[in-house]
C-alpha cells in the first residue's frame, strides 16, 4: 500500500519487512530517525528483534559482526562521522565475509562540522569491500535494502545502501510498501555456512600469513566482481515480485545523446528535468545515473557513455589533491577504450549546498563546448562556489 515516507522511515520499514533479528546502531544526524522507528517497532512488538543501543558506531558495527557471525540477520544505520569511526570495522566485516546490511544517510565530513548532505562519507570508504548502492528516491531506498539482503546473503558480502541526508532522509515521498508475505517469498531466511555454534566450533578472523593473505583478498575481489551479476539477477527477481526495475545504472534518454550527464543519488532527479528541457529544444542531452558504485559498473558505463561526445560528471564529493571519485573511476574504466568521450568533472553540492538547475545547465554547456573544440582544458571544476567568500577568481 502507498504511504508518504521519509528516507529514514523507508529504510526502517525495509529492515522490519526483512525480519532482521539483531539491530545495533548509534544515533547520528541525519540517520537517527531510522534508529528511532526501529526502536518503536521493537517496543510495540511489531518487530521481534534484539536492539543493541551501543555506545559508539565502532561498537555498532562490531556488534553486528558478532551477531551476523552467530547466524542472525543484522541491520545497522549511520552517517558521516559515524561511518568514519567504524571504517576500520568496514574492512573487517567484508574480510570476514559477513552479510551485514547498513543504511547510510549521506552527510558531509568534518572539519568544519557539517550535518548537511554530500557523498564524501561513503566515497571515503569505497575501498572497504562493501557493495555500495546509491538511491535516487525513497522508494529505491526501501527496495534497495530488501535487495541488499539477497545479494549479501547469497554472496557473503556486506552491502551499504546510501541515500542523501535530509534531501531524501527527511523528505516524505509516496512509497509503495510491499506486504510481508510478498517479502518473505522474495527473501528466504538467513543462513550462514559456518556460524559460531558450540556444536560445530569454528575460528573466525585468524592470522593470515603472507603465504595465503593475498589469495583471500583476491577471493574478496572476485566476490565483489560477482556481485555485479548478482545485483542484476536480484533486480530481475525483484521485478517479478514487485514490478519495479533496478540495475547497476539507470540510463535516461542517453542512447542517442551527444552530451551526457553522469551522477549518483538524488541529483539524478534534478538532472532528468534538465535533460527533458534540453530535449524539448532538440538538443541531444541524456543522463546516466550510477546506482551501484561498488562494484563499479565498468562494462555498463562503457556501453552507456561510449557513444557520447562529452560527459559531465556531477558529484558531491572530492578527493583533495586529485578529482572526484566517480570521475577517477569512470576515467579508469575508459582508459584503454579507443573511442572514449571527453570527460569533465564537476564538484558540487558539498556540505548541503543546493545544486540548482543553473549549475546543471552550466555543466551541460561546458560539455557541449568541450565537444565542439574537441578537447578539455580544465577537467576538474567546482560548481556553485561563492567567489566572494573565497576571495579569489575561479
Amino acid at each position: 500500500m502507498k504511504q508518504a515516507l521519509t528516507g529514514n522511515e523507508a529504510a526502517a520499514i525495509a529492515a522490519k519487512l526483512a525480519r532482521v533479528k539483531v539491530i545495533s546502531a548509534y544515533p547520528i544526524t541525519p540517520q537517527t530517525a531510522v534508529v528511532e522507528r526501529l526502536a518503536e517497532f521493537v517496543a510495540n512488538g511489531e518487530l521481534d528483534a534484539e536492539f543493541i543501543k551501543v555506545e559508539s558506531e565502532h561498537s555498532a558495527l562490531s556488534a553486528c559482526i558478532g551477531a551476523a557471525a552467530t547466524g542472525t540477520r543484522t541491520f545497522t544505520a549511520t552517517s558521516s562521522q559515524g561511518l568514519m569511526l567504524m571504517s576500520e570495522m568496514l574492512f573487517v566485516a567484508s574480510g570476514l565475509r559477513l552479510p551485514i546490511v547498513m543504511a547510510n544517510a549521506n552527510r558531509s565530513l568534518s572539519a568544519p562540522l557539517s550535518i548537511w548532505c554530500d557523498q564524501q562519507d561513503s566515497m571515503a570508504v569505497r575501498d572497504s569491500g562493501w557493495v555500495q548502492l546509491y538511491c535516487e528516491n525513497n522508494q529505491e531506498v526501501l527496495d534497495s535494502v530488501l535487495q541488499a539482503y539477497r545479494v549479501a546473503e547469497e554472496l557473503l558480502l556486506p552491502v551499504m545502501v546510501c541515500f542523501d541526508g535530509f534531501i531524501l532522509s527527511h523528505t516524505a515521498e509516496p512509497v509503495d510498501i510491499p506486504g510481508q508475505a510478498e517479502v518473505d517469498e522474495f527473501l528466504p531466511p538467513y543462513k550462514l555456512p559456518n556460524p559460531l555454534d558450540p556444536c560445530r566450533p569454528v575460528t573466525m578472523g585468524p592470522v593470515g600469513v603472507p603465504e595465503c593473505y593475498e589469495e583471500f583478498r583476491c577471493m574478496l575481489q572476485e566476490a565483489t566482481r560477482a556481485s555485479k551479476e548478482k545485483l542484476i539477477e536480484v533486480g530481475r527477481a525483484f521485478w517479478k515480485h514487485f514490478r519495479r526495475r533496478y540495475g547497476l545504472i539507470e540510463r535516461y534518454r542517453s542512447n542517442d545523446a551527444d552530451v551526457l550527464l553522469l551522477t549518483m543519488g538524488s541529483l539524478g532527479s534534478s538532472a532528468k528535468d534538465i535533460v527533458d528541457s534540453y530535449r524539448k529544444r532538440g538538443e541531444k542531452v541524456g543522463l546516466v545515473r550510477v546506482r551501484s558504485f561498488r562494484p563499479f559498473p565498468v562494462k555498463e558505463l562503457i556501453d552507456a557513455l561510449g557513444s557520447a561526445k562529452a560527459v559531465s560528471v556531477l558529484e558531491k564529493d572530492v578527493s583533495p589533491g586529485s578529482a572526484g571519485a566517480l570521475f577517477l573511476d569512470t576515467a579508469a574504466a575508459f582508459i584503454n577504450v579507443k573511442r572514449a568521450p571527453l570527460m569533465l568533472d564537476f564538484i558540487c553540492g558539498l556540505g548541503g549546498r543546493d545544486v540548482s538547475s543553473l549549475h546543471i545547465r552550466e555543466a551541460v554547456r561546458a560539455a557541449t563546448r568541450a565537444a565542439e573544440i574537441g578537447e578539455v582544458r580544465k577537467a576538474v571544476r567546482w560548481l556553485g562556489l561563492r567567489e566572494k567568500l573565497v576571495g579569489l577568481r575561479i
Partner: protein
Amino acid sequence: MKLTPGAVITEPGSTTRYQTNGWRTFRPAVDSGKCTGCGLCWLYCPDAVISRGKPPGVDYRYCKGCGICANECPAKAITMVPEERG
C-alpha cells in the same frame, strides 16, 4: 589447502599439527619414585602437554621446556635435563 571464504577455520584444535618440541633446550624428566601424583604439574602446564596420573605422562611432541612443572613440583620429582639433539 582449500581456502574458506572469510578465512574461517572449521577444524577446532588443529594447532596440534604443528609440534613445538623444537623450541626447548631443556626437557622435564619425571622420577616416578618420588612422584606423589598430586597433579600440580598437570594443572600449571601452559601447553597442556602433561597428563594426570602417578607418574604423569609428558607429551614431548609439544613440550617447550619452560620448566614450570619442575619448579612447582612439591616432591621435586621433576628435573630439567638438557635436550640432546639426535
